[in-house]
């Protein structure tokens, strides 16, 4: 086994206690929250007896440790339980909703990086210049406007006034049929199916929410790029490179930028994880059927299985993300060994 593969396996093994912790905390927290799913499930007209009966069918009358054991047993069989609000198995709900959120977040982040990183680099190479100030203004504006506000403004401008954007209702306009499900990402699925029209339709729906989210995530990425780039440009090795006659381009990109990437990747990972959980507001504004709005709805009605499923899915995602970042580090920086120490 190669040392890198062993290192990756070791990291995955390290994640096991994290997941166990998340399972326990997720279970305890949902039980600790106020609200009774049985009352909600029974409906407004229910009497005490029917509520008690429902509680019994849901298994909520058992003592907590026993409930926990049943829950863990189900988890081990791959059964995340059934959502009482949607009536679907939680795994099916997650499989529907998670790709929607991931698609939105990834597109937003790609967009954000495509703007923020060049902007940060330009700001750092000319500190105090017009572009540096422009960068600062954009970044401050992006982070100080709440996403639901930018979202609504964008809808007002591009849908209501200009009429360029489609109605902000979900991932696909109702006249289109969902592409065959392969990955759950509409863009990828429609492209795989060779359905250009659906692809464009999905893209049109995606633009406004992605821009909203991108504006918000611009700030940390641009700032970190600028700071890291400034640091790298004043490093001794950049001076050596310049003293050896290397051109500005080589110095900036091969020497300074690659060294500045490390903190940028770290920031990207952090931004990604917090956006994925925090884009509820964007999902709400654009009626995006994502995992954030799913979790909030489930939380409101104490839908235990759904909330626990969400928490667990997030935990897995973060573990995977951290692993990805660690692997990226080793690709950028040879000093970081990937050995099981």
């Amino acid at each position, binding site marked *: 086994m190669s040392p890198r593969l062993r290192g990756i396996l070791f990291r995955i093994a390290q994640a096991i206690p994290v997941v166990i912790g998340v399972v326990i905390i997720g279970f305890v927290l949902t039980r600790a929250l106020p609200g009774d799913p049985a009352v909600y499930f029974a409906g407004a007209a229910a009497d005490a007896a029917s509520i008690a009966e429902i509680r019994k069918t849901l298994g909520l009358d058992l003592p907590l440790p026993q409930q926990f054991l049943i829950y863990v047993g189900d988890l081990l069989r791959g059964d995340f339980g059934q959502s009482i609000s949607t009536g679907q198995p939680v795994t099916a709900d997650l499989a529907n909703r998670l790709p929607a959120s991931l698609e939105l977040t990834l597109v937003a982040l790609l967009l954000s990086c495509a703007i923020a990183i060049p902007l940060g680099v330009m700001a750092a190479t000319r*500190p105090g210049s017009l572009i540096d100030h422009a960068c600062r203004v954009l970044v401050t504006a992006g982070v100080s406007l709440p996403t639901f506000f930018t979202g609504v403004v964008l809808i007002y401008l591009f849908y209501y006034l200009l009429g360029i954007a489609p109605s902000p209702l979900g991932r696909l306009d109702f006249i289109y049929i969902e592409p065959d499900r392969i990955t759950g990402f509409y863009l990828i699925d429609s492209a795989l199916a060779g359905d250009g029209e659906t692809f464009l339709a999905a893209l049109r729906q995606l633009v406004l929410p992605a821009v909203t989210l991108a504006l918000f995530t611009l700030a940390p990425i641009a700032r970190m790029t600028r700071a890291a780039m400034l640091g790298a440009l*004043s*490093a*001794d*090795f950049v*001076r*050596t*490179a*310049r*003293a*050896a*006659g*290397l*051109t*500005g381009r*080589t110095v900036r990109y*091969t*020497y300074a930028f*690659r*060294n500045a990437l490390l903190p940028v990747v770290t920031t990207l990972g952090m931004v990604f994880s917090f956006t994925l959980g925090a884009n509820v507001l964007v999902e709400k504004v654009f009626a995006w059927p994502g995992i954030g709005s799913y979790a909030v709805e489930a939380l409101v009605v104490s839908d235990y299985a759904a909330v626990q499923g969400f928490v667990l899915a997030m935990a897995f995602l973060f573990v995977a993300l951290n692993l990805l970042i660690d692997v990226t580090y080793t690709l*950028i*920086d*040879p*000093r970081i060994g990937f*050995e099981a*120490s």
Partner: protein
Amino acid sequence: MLSVTNLAVRFQTRRGPVDALKGVNLEVASGEILGVVGESGSGKSVTAYSIMRLLEAGGKVVDGTVRYGGVDLSDPSENQMGNIRGREISMIFQNPRAALNPIRRVGDQIGDVLRRHARATRTTAKAEAIKALEAVRIRDAAARVDAYPFELSGGMCQRVVIALALACDPKLLIMDEPTTGLDITTQKAVMDLVADLIRDRGMSAILITHDLGLASGYCDRIMVMRDGEVVERGTPLSLFTAPDHPYTRRLIDATPRLGARIRELLPVEARTPMPERRVENEPLLEVRNLVKTFPSRSGPVHAVRDVSFTIRKGQTLGLVGESGCGKSTTSSMVVRLLDPTSGQIIFRGEDLAATPASRFARDPRRARIQMVFQDATDSLNPRHTSRQTIAEPLRRLGTGASNDRIAELADLVGLPLPLLDRFPHQLSGGQKARVGIARAIALDPDLLILDEPTAALDVSIQAIVLNLLIDLQARLGISYLFVTHDLNVVRLLCDQVIVMQGGAIVEQGPAEQVMRNPATAYTRSLVAAAPQPPALGDAAQ
């Protein structure tokens, strides 16, 4: 070949413009090595950067010209200047590890330069880089070409930097403190190598250094700078034997050298008589069979192997060796910041090793052993005034910090009282060193561990601090464990010396004897590698 006339450089700072260079003239003839010597802030590095047009933003040449081979170097565009850098004029820097791109293979970095100056193509770059590495006598260059800087030693990194600078056969090489931070034997190896290469290729060079001894060993001519001006120039011998300018005189005096006594480092008017020092026979510290082994993936690392020594009351013991020899590990164990694997540290009859380092901070004996750290700046809390810094140990381990006691300590270390309410960034290097010493002696310790306390200081400040340490020892009867790599300083300050190599003691004895007649080959190589300025009055030679 290179002529700089009336060069003036001004830096815009937050506190207004600062003149870094005030009309500097210099000439380098073909095949000549010029030494530029001065202390920090003298403008010697700024001179080099102005020649290369590599001044940071904020620095501007306001007057004067730099002509290289008849061309005014202010004329070429930035792009044309790039053609001159590396191909005509090259530069090597201090701190070689930082001077190389940490995440690029050294061969690729040399290849970048070769390709920039059309000395190689993408396909031949690697082979040419190997040749460049072989030229600086790196063994097994074909394997090293794929190494990253962190995989190479400091001396090896400096060779790579030299290879990079010389890859395109420049005519002029500017060396900015090329050996600062390198071990003394490595310094000699690197300097000998550069000197050979310069001679073989018929190049000219400028050697910028704070070390007069180093400059006199390798340069044809030396110019001494202070505050952005050239105060004196001449051959090494003429400078040392008959310095004209009082500043040169002071600089030469302050340079530790063979035959000089510690008071002779100071300017003549400051040479007070040596205080009486009493070394008692009673041992203060006995280290017995000290061993420290660090576990590591590739097996245990024996950092310190069976080290034993004794320090008597009022005595100074020097601990000498190159980096990685175990001297810092040893001193960390003695100062009780690190637990030994085995062995005893008997201090005034009690074994300190019995108390774990983690609990020693609360031990009453903590006050008895204190430390002065290497970097006077980094070892002070930037948000504490001098007063707070000195008060800290008094409050935590002593009877409380009275203003009288703090004033008394400031007086002892020669720190003017008004400076007590300043922050570290408002103090000079020497003043910071004094604060660090005042903090260490605040609790009247019996033993001070001095970890290269003068390594980061200018020679004139070093002279003052060393004399201060001697005076304090005489007044307070403290014993010193002096950790250093500078043999000239050991000779001045220490009664006894221990030479360490590979975690073990290779030689020990009275300092004067070990320095004069080293018994082992290793000590001999250390003594031989220390640069020796010609002694004053050596004119006859």
